[in-house]
């Protein structure tokens, strides 16, 4: 769907992107992660052809990115807004027509969306009369109205109240089910795991990690488990098939975080423990994307 190859972008004095390559395959929800100032917005602006890279190429559906692709992309920037003095319906029609929709078609689709989001009474309202949340709903409609194949959202949930964020999240998922590819950037990791199929991590203008969320997390597995049990506290003597990382006292009993010794399996651990304590809970500890993110960022410094 989108193939980003060796993009370099320099502004006077600093490098925004150095040699970034990414593959976003069709139908994915792709998360572009990174701290503030990492270069996410620069990359997104290049994909939207708002700015051009110093070097490198982008392919959209196998073709080199060009002006004709603009109508197939829907973009909601981080700095978003609408004309304050313009009626909301008219305004979205205008934005949709800039994306190549006809007046009639745009009107029809806006009616559909306004009904869906229960904002149908707003057509003639001016933007300045609407609340922030309402404006954002309208903005979202403007972004997806022309049924783009690729929807790019820069920090989509910043500024949304939790209720509207949920509404928008559901709409994003539905659009994705209908076949749209979603690319969104965020510096907040909470939303990533439940939404994204794939992610890329950008830090200080470099891509430091990318791939499917599952694969990445799997690659960060370290044979670490968390076990909760009741009964007396375990006494370890060095013969057990694991090493203890930490332990804690919980309301129900104890918990222990452990790492398997080379060659041993979880089952062996259970066999070792079962005679001694009664186990209430066992879980493999896989680092969250957030932890992977922080780990990587710290590693690079």
């Amino acid at each position, binding site marked *: 769907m989108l193939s980003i190859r060796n993009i370099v972008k320099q502004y006077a004095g600093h490098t925004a992107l150095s040699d970034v390559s990414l593959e976003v395959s069709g139908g994915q929800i792709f998360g572009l992660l990174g701290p503030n100032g990492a270069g996410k917005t620069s990359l997104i602006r290049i994909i939207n052809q*708002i700015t051009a890279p110093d070097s490198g190429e982008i392919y959209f559906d196998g073709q080199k990115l060009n002006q004709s692709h603009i109508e197939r992309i829907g*973009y909601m920037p981080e700095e978003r807004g609408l004309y304050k003095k313009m009626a909301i319906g008219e305004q979205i029609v205008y934005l949709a027509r800039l*994306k190549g929709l006809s007046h009639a078609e745009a009107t029809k689709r806006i009616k559909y969306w306004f009904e869906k989001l229960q904002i149908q009474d707003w057509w003639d309202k001016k933007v300045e009369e609407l609340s922030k949340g309402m404006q954002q709903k309208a903005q979202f409609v403007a972004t997806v109205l022309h049924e783009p194949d690729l929807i790019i959202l820069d920090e989509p949930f910043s500024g949304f109240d939790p209720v509207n964020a949920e509404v928008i999240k559901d709409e994003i998922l539905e659009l994705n089910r209908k076949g749209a590819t979603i690319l969104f950037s965020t510096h907040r990791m909470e939303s990533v795991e439940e939404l994204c199929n794939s992610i890329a991590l950008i830090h200080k203008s470099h891509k430091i990690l990318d791939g499917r969320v599952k694969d990445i997390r799997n690659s960060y597995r370290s044979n670490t488990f968390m076990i909760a049990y009741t009964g007396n506290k375990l006494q370890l003597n060095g013969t057990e098939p694991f090493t203890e990382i930490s332990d804690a006292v919980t309301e129900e009993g104890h918990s222990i975080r452990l790492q398997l010794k080379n060659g041993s399996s979880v089952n062996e651990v259970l066999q070792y423990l079962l005679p001694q304590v009664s186990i209430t809970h066992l879980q493999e500890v896989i680092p969250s994307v957030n932890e992977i993110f922080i780990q990587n960022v710290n590693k690079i410094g």
Partner: protein
Amino acid sequence: MNKVLLIIQREYLSRVRKKAFLVTVFLVPVLLLAMYAVMYLIYKNSSELNTVRTVKVIDESGVFAGKLKDGKSIKFEKVNAPLASAKKDLKKHEDDIVLFIPKTYGQPKAVQVLSEKKPNMSVSNAIERQLNDIATNNNMVAQGINAEQLSNIRSDISISAKELTDSGDEKESNIGALYVIGVACAIMIYLSLFIYGAQVMRGVIEEKTNRIIEVIVSSVKPFQLMLGKIIGVALVSLTQFILWILLSLAVSFIANKYFAAPQSPMLGFLEGLKNVPFGFIISCFLFYFLTGFLLYSALFAAVGSAVDSESETQQFMFPITMPLLFTYLISVSFLAQNPDSSLAFWLSVVPFTAPVAMMVRLPFDPPTWQLILSMCMMVIGFLFTTWVASRIYRVGILMYGKKASYSELVKWFFYKE
């Protein structure tokens, strides 16, 4: 290109629909109507001014009496009565004026003009001029110049400016009327360049502060947006001008019908306007306004893109407004009086000053080649500023919270796409 049309449409409609637009469109004809009404009232009152006033001369010096000549609205009459009785007489004939010349007429404020009504300027000026002439003559005679020499020295020159037309005919030209038209055009073009240029700038700042700019430039190129906005505002201004011209013509027509004044004081002036090629001047006005607007509004757009709010525009506005303000200021005094000077020539070919300078010169028929050169320079000028401005604009619109300096703008200019 279709997208530029869409942008033009939005920019145009969003402005024309505003109440402020309608108000200004109708304000000008209403003011014009008021002007006609005032002129009519002045005319009605001025019929009083035209009555002949009798000036009773009490000449104690004996130098002036008999030498004063009657004019259009003054009649001199020698009176031998003393000042006191003449004063009494004034009560009865309130239109009369008493001119009292004491023996010591040479001293300041010695000569008195007395009247029941306030003496008007033109009458007292006429009296003063005559008295001075007579006194000067007397002094010259006293210095030994005889009457014959005197009449040779005296000159009575009044200029009648005539201009050779292409066909070789002499054409009476009314310098006063030409001056007024030139200056009026300069003021009009100066004001409208700033008013509409500032509209473009405000539009750009609005898009920036509303944060809609990035949404739009993801659909169209920044240059298209800038162009659409400039053309949209240009069309708004043209609409306004055309409505003004039409409404003014309508108002003038009505005014002529109802305030018909055969000897209106404006008539002489209007007579002078008859020889002015209005069609030509209006076309040139529209040309210079349009090209000047394109030139300046591009710069205004660049300024708008470089700031976050209108209050920050000051530092950039100054150099932009300087050339125009300078030309405007000297146009009234210097240019209109020296329309063929070399300064006037240079100012009217430099695109930044030409709209004002050339409009001042236009009623005085500048050479055709200069007009053509100036027009070509205007076109080159606006293409150039649009190019420069668009390079700053495309970067500036995406910059937030960064205080732009001139060196910053230069950097932006050299950014690659």
